[in-house]
């Protein structure tokens, strides 16, 4: 057994960037060894250190979901995606910090403290995005080769956009959720973060398999029906609704430049309408908390997890009121209460049911614009003759670049929820979607930065068109790649800082 290639460099980066708080636990350095005995078919993943978000169960490292109530919890089993990584010869190098149970957009709501992104000593602390901010920043700062995250409403794509890495959310049901701590099951997906599209794709290929342990795993027969066609020239949709007035000019310019470059490379551009998008965010923030309030009811400290000091409960009450009050953080409590309300008899019809209807409309919107019919539906939606059909949609991942943590702290929760406005529609429809960093030209920068600045450009495809999304992402990533994406060794960050050995 020998140390992994670049193991020392990764370890050095981990200590150099420890202050970013990207990890909640790290594997012993002695674990970063090559498993020569593993007969891995995917050489690109073998012997690679991969970080795993802390809401994905690992039997060797604690799985806390960055929550006080699970602060000492170690799962008795590996999640299927972790098992598949290990089978492919990858090494789990640590568990990454996150918003508690995946609830947040800046990775600040963590029992382990906020994830902080500081790309330059002169820069004020920025948000790494959330909830997979730890995974994204771990990749961005070259502390690992790639990372697993989870994406419920944009939790992989948003941090990828803020930190300048690639973040992919597959079609719902392709990657197993067995062993992934549920936030909102009908939206939760395992996502992948990496410095380049090909790395992310390699990890995806290693994980993309039917799992009988996940009841929502797409069956082998449906997988066989999914589209695998290749296209030389793509029809690219530009959703007009996404050009909102609050879109930061730098982001808008990066989007426009990307579209222009795509056009120049022979792909055709088509304006499309996704009218239900304007309601998508409100629907998401009803559905996700509703499911969360249900999923998090199990955390009571009775069978596992932490309990409050002293005697909890009275003869009239359950034995864990105090435990839950102390163990769950304020944002989690807020969403549990929101969800409990929208599911209550008095609010169900006006909130939960309405939101489900909007979700259906959002799915319908997407089905109307894609050339590929949705393989999960028997019927084709009615096509409007004024609506062009497209292969993929290209739009910004987030309305702004990474905001400062100070501004985030002053934000009310509703404004924080606004960060997810472009990522939530694909989550509601279960569509594959990827965020690719696109460098911002110096003249487009708001204030000229002493580092490479990027904006996240999102590519959304029809359900099951994950390959097409990767193909489009590959094209976009070549437009103005980051230094990190071009480097072979972990010696440069996503913002272009070279790390000396």
């Amino acid at each position, binding site marked *: 057994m020998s140390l992994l290639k670049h193991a020392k460099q990764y370890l050095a980066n981990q200590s150099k960037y420890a202050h970013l708080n990207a990890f909640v636990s790290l594997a012993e350095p002695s674990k970063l060894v090559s498993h020569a005995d593993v007969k891995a078919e995917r050489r690109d993943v073998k012997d690679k250190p991969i970080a795993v978000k802390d809401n994905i169960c690992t039997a060797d490292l604690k799985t806390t979901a960055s929550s006080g109530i699970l602060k000492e919890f170690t799962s008795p089993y590996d999640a299927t995606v972790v098992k598949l990584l290990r089978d492919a010869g990858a090494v789990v190098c640590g568990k990454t910090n996150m918003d508690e149970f995946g609830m947040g957009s800046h990775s600040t709501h963590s029992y382990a403290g906020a994830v902080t992104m500081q790309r330059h000593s002169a820069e004020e602390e920025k948000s790494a995005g959330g909830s997979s901010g730890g995974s994204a920043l771990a990749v961005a700062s070259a502390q690992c080769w790639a990372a697993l995250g989870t994406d419920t409403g944009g939790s992989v794509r948003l941090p990828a956009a803020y930190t300048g890495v690639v973040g992919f959310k597959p079609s719902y049901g392709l990657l197993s959720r067995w062993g992934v701590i549920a936030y909102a099951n009908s939206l939760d997906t395992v996502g992948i973060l990496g410095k380049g599209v090909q790395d992310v794709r390699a990890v995806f290929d290693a994980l993309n398999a039917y799992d009988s342990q996940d009841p*929502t795993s797409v069956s082998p027969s449906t997988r066989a029906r999914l589209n695998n066609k290749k296209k030389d020239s793509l029809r690219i949709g530009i959703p007009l609704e996404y050009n909102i007035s609050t879109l930061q000019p730098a982001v808008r310019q990066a989007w426009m430049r990307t579209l222009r470059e795509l056009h120049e490379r022979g792909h055709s551009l088509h304006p499309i309408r996704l009218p239900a998008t304007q309601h998508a965010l409100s629907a998401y923030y009803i559905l996700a908390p509703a499911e969360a309030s249900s999923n998090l009811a199990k955390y009571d400290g009775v069978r596992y997890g932490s309990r409050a000091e002293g*005697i909890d409960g009275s003869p009239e009450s*359950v034995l864990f009121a105090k435990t839950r009050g102390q163990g769950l953080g304020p944002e989690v409590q807020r969403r549990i209460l929101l969800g409990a309300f929208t599911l209550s008899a008095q609010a169900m019809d006006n909130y939960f049911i309405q939101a489900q209807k909007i979700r259906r409309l959002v799915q319908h919107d997407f089905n109307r614009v894609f050339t590929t019919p949705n393989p999960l539906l028997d019927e084709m939606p009615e096509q409007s003759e004024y609506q062009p059909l497209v292969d993929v949609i290209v739009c910004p991942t987030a309305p702004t670049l990474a905001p400062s943590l100070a501004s985030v702290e002053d934000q009310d929760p509703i404004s924080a929820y606004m960060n997810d406005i472009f990522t939530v529609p694909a989550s509601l429809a279960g569509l594959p979607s990827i965020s690719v960093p696109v460098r911002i030209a110096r003249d487009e920068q708001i204030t000229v930065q002493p580092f490479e600045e990027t904006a996240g450009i999102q590519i959304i495809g029809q359900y099951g068109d994950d390959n097409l999304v990767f193909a489009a992402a590959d094209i976009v990533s070549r437009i103005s790649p980051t230094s990190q994406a071009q480097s072979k060794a972990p010696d440069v960050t996503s913002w272009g800082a070279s790390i000396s050995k």
Partner: protein
Amino acid sequence: MLANNTRNAFVAVSKRPYVWSIPLRFQKRALQTASQPPAQDDTPFRKALKDAAKQQKKATRGGNKAKKASDPRLEKWELTVGIEIHAELNTARKLFSSAATSISESPNTHASLFDVAFPGSQPHFQKETLIPALRAALAFDCTIQPRSSFDRKHYFYQDQPNGYQITQYYEPFATDGHITLHAHDFPAGSAPEDCPIKIGIKQVQMEQDTAKTVQQPPSTHLLDFNRVSHPLIEIITLPHIHDPLVAAACVRKIQTILKTVDACTAGMEMGGLRADVNVSIRERGQTTGGEGLSYSGVTGLGQRTEIKNLASVKAVEDAIIAERDRQIQLVEGGGAVEGETRGWTVGSKTTKRLRGKEGEIDYRYMPDPDISPVFIAQDLVDHLRTNLPVLPDRVVDVLVEKYGLSVKDAGTLLSFDSGDRLEYFFEVTNQLARTRLIKPSDPKFPTIGKAAGNWVLMELGSLFKDEEWSADRVPPEILVSIIQQLLEKRVTSRSAKKLLAEKFEGDERDIDQLIEDYNMQLRPLSSEGYRNLAQTLLDEKPDMVRDIVEKGQEKKIKWFVGQMMARSPEGTVEADVAEKTLQELLPTKKVE
């Protein structure tokens, strides 16, 4: 054919030995403040069964009393009751995990990761659990829904690991059934006049059971997760019941049907079944126009209360009576019934308030996003329907039409020993018919059934009066050979009874040997011999002859019959021939 089917049905029921060897399970339930006196888990099974039988006898007496005493208040107020019954399904695995179901295994040895709600675990619907549930729903004539789904019912309690119970709230798998109560479904003599009574069943749904809490005062709660996610069905009747006795009969019959179709693990007395009842009263003759409340489409009802967690048929009946009387008293005293949840403890005189409307739990029902809908194909439904064991009502018809029993005897046979006595009866009758070369289609077949019924119910019944039924005590072939000896006139009926008593007490000699040892062979007297013996006796007792002839005291003839048998060797005098001879010899009454 029919006879065979019927038999197989009951054979199937009794071939589940574990039901008979397990200790009792009385459990404290979630949300349960009032509960049955917790019987010890080591209560011997026989003793518990006996107690249950005693209880039922008592319940029957109580029911009769209540019926006889006409309460003027009941003339004024009409009671309305709906019942929800939870029954543990007889399945190998849990509802949402491949962990085995278990009855009395060591605590926490049968629980999967999902059963104890470990982070990241997911449910796996075990579709085989549908089979007994479907059988039950078909037995209640329900419409099986081609599509049904599972929902989460949220409430916090330590015996509910996920913080919700998975149930079928929005789309249950079976709807619109019914159950019909006939006179034979009631304890003897207590059947209401309006029989048969049809009670609608709104729906049958599948759901999970909870863990078992063992409380160790003052502050320890031990949790056993073996029972978590054991599949249950909940059967919800419409508020079609207006008599506590009918409610009790309904629960009893549901229990019998569930057992007949092999849907359930155990009966109510064994903790396999629990009932909630909702009770309301309204003034008779008041046709409420826009007034009154409506439940499940039944309109014009009074405010109802719900009594939770009744663990025996008697508790159902008594709790309803107590709650009805409480409501009448309340309303007559100028008060109003409040919608609330109440509890009942066996032996108490009234129900106890558990929580009011303001304390009602909002269960926040939500479709479970991890469990896809269940699609049930028509061919599966058809197959199960075709192969459904013969239901009790049909069995009664068969017993009356094919086996020559009275409706009353048929009902008795059905209700005894959880169907074991019936199975025994079928075995005896069919063996006897084969021995006598009588086919089921033969017009003489009913007489065979009638004879066998008499022996199984009356003769064997009186021997078993104070003892637990066991088919092995007098195996069917022994009883068959005794009856055969009698029918072949090789022994007298008195000898036959004696033979039965000997075998019952465990005599190991075979029947032929016994007959020989006791010198029981029938060597009938000649008619001359009968006449001589009769005449001698009549001459000895002229007073009695006068009483018979002149005062019409016909019963005294029996005394002479007895004397004739007593004075002759065993197996020589048959009672009916003796009586006939006596009748002939007695002087006819002079017409004055």
